[in-house]
């Protein structure tokens, strides 16, 4: 098999395994990455909510926040795992599309 096809299979395996990135932190009671807290968390940690941070933190409304569907914050982990895999598929499809378009633009001459 060509190496490029093996790479795609490898990406596919990673997509299927990706919920580990959700389940392991939950199992080991690990919280948010350092410096990526939401407003409530930072108020608790720092003792106050910095004014500039407060005004900027909701600047962008991502369509699938935290690799889940909107309003799914309190869903059980099985649901979130599904959303995580779905996010990985959507994200990768979009990335592949953008990269192929860029690549088409970049590599016009054949050697």
């Amino acid at each position, binding site marked *: 098999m060509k*190496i*490029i096809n*093996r*790479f*795609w299979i490898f*990406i596919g395996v*990673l997509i299927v395994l*990706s919920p*580990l*990135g959700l389940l*392991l*932190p939950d199992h*080991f*009671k*690990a*919280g*948010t*990455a*350092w*410096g*990526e807290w939401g407003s409530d968390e*930072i108020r608790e940690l*720092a003792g*106050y909510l*910095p*004014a*500039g*941070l*407060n*005004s*900027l*933190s*909701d*600047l*962008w*409304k*991502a*369509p*699938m*926040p*935290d*690799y889940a569907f909107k309003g799914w914050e309190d869903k059980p982990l099985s649901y979130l795992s599904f959303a*995580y895999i779905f*996010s*990985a598929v*959507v*994200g*990768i499809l*979009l*990335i*592949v599309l*953008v*990269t*192929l378009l*860029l*690549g088409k633009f*970049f*590599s016009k001459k*054949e*050697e």
Partner: protein
Amino acid sequence: MHIPDGYLGPVTCGFFYAVMLPIWTIAAKIVKKTLKVKQVPMLAIGAAFSFVIMMFNVPIPGGTTGHAVGGVLVAILLGPWAACIAITVALVVQALLFGDGGITAIGANCFNMAFILPFAGYYIYKAVSYKSAVNSSRRIFAAGLAGYLGINIAAFFAGLEFGLQPLLHHTASGQALYCPYGLNVALPVMLGEHLLIFGWVEAIVTALVIKYLQKQDADILGEGGSKQ
């Protein structure tokens, strides 16, 4: 290491957009000159790989999480400029679609993860594997070391960007406006967690894939990387 909106002030955000603009332009020019049509799928795989590997949050039990970036591997296989473009695509999709990393911080996040990380990693790999045979174990070591150091140098810059905020922006009473933690906290935390845990994840991922490729398709190790 994905800095969200609100943690960096306008000066820092603007500065890193201004720094990245010429880097993206040069990357586009160089990749346009060197990328062959048959390498385009590899560019897509590199971006996809970096995207999905960043979803594997690794826990520090009872503490925080972090992840590998995969960017050093992409740089070894495609060269640092193509890696810069591939990782940028991944980071922009993460920010826009999933809110992972802020849109005001895309410049800074790309500087750390799409520029510093692949370039540092690539040149460390080149230096340590210098004149070694394609299938030598020195190459595997070089890949691991490059992964470990590449992500740690990137984490150092992220810590620097976080930590400078209280100095740059604060109220008259001394309350920070953006990231509330100064260099004395941000630098040791960002570096410490990557030196202890996440750096090893990047090292192992990079070294294992290089080891696999040595067995399966050693040609690819001589391609993208050695050209630039």
